[in-house]
């Protein structure tokens, strides 16, 4: 077999194997691991904060756990921790680790910038937490703390943008010679889509943060001061922007499902197109929500239909991808597996079931979003108005966030961790703990979604009252009936279950990886298709001396097909095989 040398682009100096090496590393494998570990800790912190908020909302007449000063900060911290602390960095870390291996690159592009991305993110996240502790954050009472929060948020955005650019450039420019874009592994493509969309959407919030910071620190508070911040940036934490963050989950789903099928999709462009569609229709949330504050009359009546269009596009993308993968699985139902350890639908493991669940939940989230946006549009357009609050101002939004962050995001993350743990740490994670965490996260996410969603529909419980956010916790006079209390409590129970699931994931990693109790993994434990499974588990630190030559994103499938008397790369060979008369 031929291959190519690790060239200078993206090359890193020799890695220091000592603990100090973690501090000055520019190796994508270490940076990826750091991102993954720290983002899981943030998931725990975010879920705990969410739990406090939901318990507080379980009483319609006032605060139970928090108080008037802390509610807004804990509410906004929850979103910060789950989106900027967990969802984006978790998949960024996985992408930084896996994408270079998948495309045959010696390292992530701009290894030092990727390291800067991690440390910048970690420091900014620490400052963000400090700002909240100092009574800063949106709605905070300590003015300098609010400014510090905005600076930390800008730091988080810049750091994550830097990491996203490293991943995108790796996929675009450092693919092995011969691996064209239409043969890129699905996860690498999904990482490129997300990175590109992050670049063009998080850039907007950076501009907004500059304005908000100057206004809050120096200006006459014409944007509402500390209470005006959240209404201008909360589009980052809501659908359809959330769809951008979960596009890598679709990549994970495609990777695992295709490995289970041991077959390439019949139309690769459809695979890439559908994932791109989800990212594309997640973009634009900033325009819809950003402009509705000062420029509401500019888009009067349009905002509803724009949202309907965004959700419809995302739904088309997700359902198209799932249909494509489902059809591929159906086509391969009788295909023999090369060896007994191969992953398949008849022999599911945590990764397969979690991937299936995560993909389904994204589709459900898009469908639910479309229904909600359609209802709101009818109201905005004056058809069917009955004086009810639009759903997007109720806890319906909290439900969507739960579905996408806890459901799709964490389940997708669980699938990715179980799938790539052998490659990342050289150990398999415990399947028993994996299934337990799968049930807890999946079930908890559904309950965490159901409570606030039903409350939003039936009681119009406010999600967050921008002008007077404390009204959010005193909604007795605003809701249709008293069922909101029970439904909020139901949502809180869901978060408790999710929290248990995340704790199990962390525990599983500690026991299986840190304590080395997990089974040592061979190079290709799942009979995977993509190039990373050609490398040892885990690959050695530092730049590889030489890398495999890759003609497609599925070299192991190519080899299997060649063994069956077929020539060519995965996609082409599949087509050839289809054309052979029986």
């Amino acid at each position, binding site marked *: *077999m*031929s*291959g*190519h040398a690790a060239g*200078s*682009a993206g090359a890193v100096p020799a890695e220091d194997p000592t603990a100090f090496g973690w501090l000055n590393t520019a190796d994508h494998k270490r940076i990826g691991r750091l991102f993954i570990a720290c983002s899981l800790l943030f998931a725990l912190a975010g879920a705990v904060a969410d739990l406090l908020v939901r318990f507080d909302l379980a009483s319609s007449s006032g605060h139970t756990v928090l108080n008037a000063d802390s509610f807004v900060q804990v509410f906004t911290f929850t979103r910060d921790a789950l989106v900027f602390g967990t969802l984006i960095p978790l998949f960024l870390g996985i992408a930084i680790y896996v994408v270079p291996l998948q495309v045959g690159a*010696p390292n992530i592009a701009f290894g030092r910038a990727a390291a800067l991305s991690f440390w910048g993110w970690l420091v900014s996240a620490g400052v963000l937490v400090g700002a909240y502790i100092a009574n800063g954050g949106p709605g905070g009472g300590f003015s300098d703390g609010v400014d510090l929060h905005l600076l930390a948020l800008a730091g988080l955005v810049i750091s994550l*943008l830097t990491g996203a*650019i*490293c991943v*995108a*450039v790796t996929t675009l*420019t*450092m*693919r092995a*010679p*011969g691996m064209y874009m239409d043969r890129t592994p699905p996860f690498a493509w999904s990482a490129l889509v997300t990175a*590109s969309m992050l*670049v*063009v*959407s*998080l*850039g*907007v919030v*950076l*501009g*907004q943060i*500059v*304005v908000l910071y*100057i*206004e809050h620190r*120096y*200006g*006459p508070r*014409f944007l509402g001061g500390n209470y005006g911040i959240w209404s201008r940036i909360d589009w980052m934490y809501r659908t359809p922007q959330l769809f951008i963050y979960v596009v890598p989950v679709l990549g994970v789903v495609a990777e695992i499902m295709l490995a289970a099928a041991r077959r390439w999709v019949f139309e690769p462009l459809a695979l890439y197109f559908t994932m791109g569609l989800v990212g594309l229709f997640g973009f634009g949330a900033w325009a819809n929500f*950003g*402009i509705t*504050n*000062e*420029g509401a*009359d*500019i888009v009067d009546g349009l905002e509803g239909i724009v949202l309907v269009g965004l959700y419809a596009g995302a739904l088309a993308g997700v359902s198209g991808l799932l249909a494509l993968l489902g059809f591929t699985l159906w086509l391969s139902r009788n295909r023999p597996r090369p060896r007994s350890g191969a992953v398949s639908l008849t022999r599911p493991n945590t990764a397969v079931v979690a991937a299936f669940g995560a993909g389904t939940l994204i589709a459900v989230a898009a469908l639910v979003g479309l229904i909600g946006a359609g209802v709101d549009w009818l109201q905005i357009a004056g058809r069917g108005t009955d004086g009810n609050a639009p759903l997007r101002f109720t806890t319906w939004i909290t439900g969507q966030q739960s579905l996408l962050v806890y459901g799709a995001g964490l389940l997708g993350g669980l699938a990715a961790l179980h799938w790539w743990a052998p490659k990342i740490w050289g150990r398999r994670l415990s399947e028993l703990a994996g299934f337990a965490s799968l049930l807890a996260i999946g079930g908890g996410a559904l309950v965490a979604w159901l409570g606030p969603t039903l409350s939003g529909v039936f009681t119009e419980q406010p999600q967050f009252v921008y002008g007077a956010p404390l009204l959010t916790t005193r909604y007795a006079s605003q809701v249709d009936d008293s069922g909101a209390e029970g439904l909020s409590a139901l949502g809180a129970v869901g978060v408790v279950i999710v929290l248990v699931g995340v704790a199990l994931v962390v525990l599983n990693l500690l026991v299986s990886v840190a304590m080395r109790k997990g089974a040592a993994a*061979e190079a*290709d434990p799942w009979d995977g298709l993509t190039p990373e499974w*050609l*490398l040892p588990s885990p690959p050695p630190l530092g730049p*590889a*001396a*030489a890398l495999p*030559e890759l*003609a497609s994103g599925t*070299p*192991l499938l*190519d*080899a299997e097909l*060649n063994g069956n008397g077929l*020539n*060519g*790369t995965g*996609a082409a060979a599949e087509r050839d095989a289809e054309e052979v008369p029986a």
Partner: protein
Amino acid sequence: MSDATSTVEAPQPGRYSVPGPPPRPRSQLVGTGFAIAAGAMAVAGALGHYMARRHASGIDPGHDWLAGQSVPNPQLVYALITLLVSVVTAHWAVWASGRGERGHTWVGMALTLVMGLAFFNMVMFSLNRMELEIGSGEWATLAYAVTGLSLAILIVGMFYLGLMTLRSLGGSVGRDRSTPLGAAVFFWDFAVLAWAATWYVVYVVK
């Protein structure tokens, strides 16, 4: 390089293979393109905020958006022209670098950097003359924020240009070695465009 119809030898999991051709060299240019996209969206976000506030204030009749502030546009026009000329000299430097002409490369970059500094001098003079006081009013505050963002991007652009100029001084010139300088000039083009958009929205349309 294999194609879709060639025979692919069966790879063996767990084994690296032998050396081959190097990876593609344009990472820096593509990375700069992504940074430009992010910067463009940041400027667009800030300008969008500015325009939305201006629109909202216009709804209130009799409201003086500028709060009596006058804008010395002649100086700002000269500043913009200086920047536009610096774009020409920057591209001259890249062109010369591609032909391996070190002298022209360095003169072009030196002129670009000097004009960049002259631009900052002119803008600071204009802002001082305006006596624009941050926090004195809505327009002044927003103008400070948006102008500051654009100037920050220009500063990053000058730093990037300076860094790549030093690299050129170190001998990185020639057809195959000019991409980093080209990437820096690409960013400079964007920074100038971002300033032009800011100037038009904030100081011409106001």
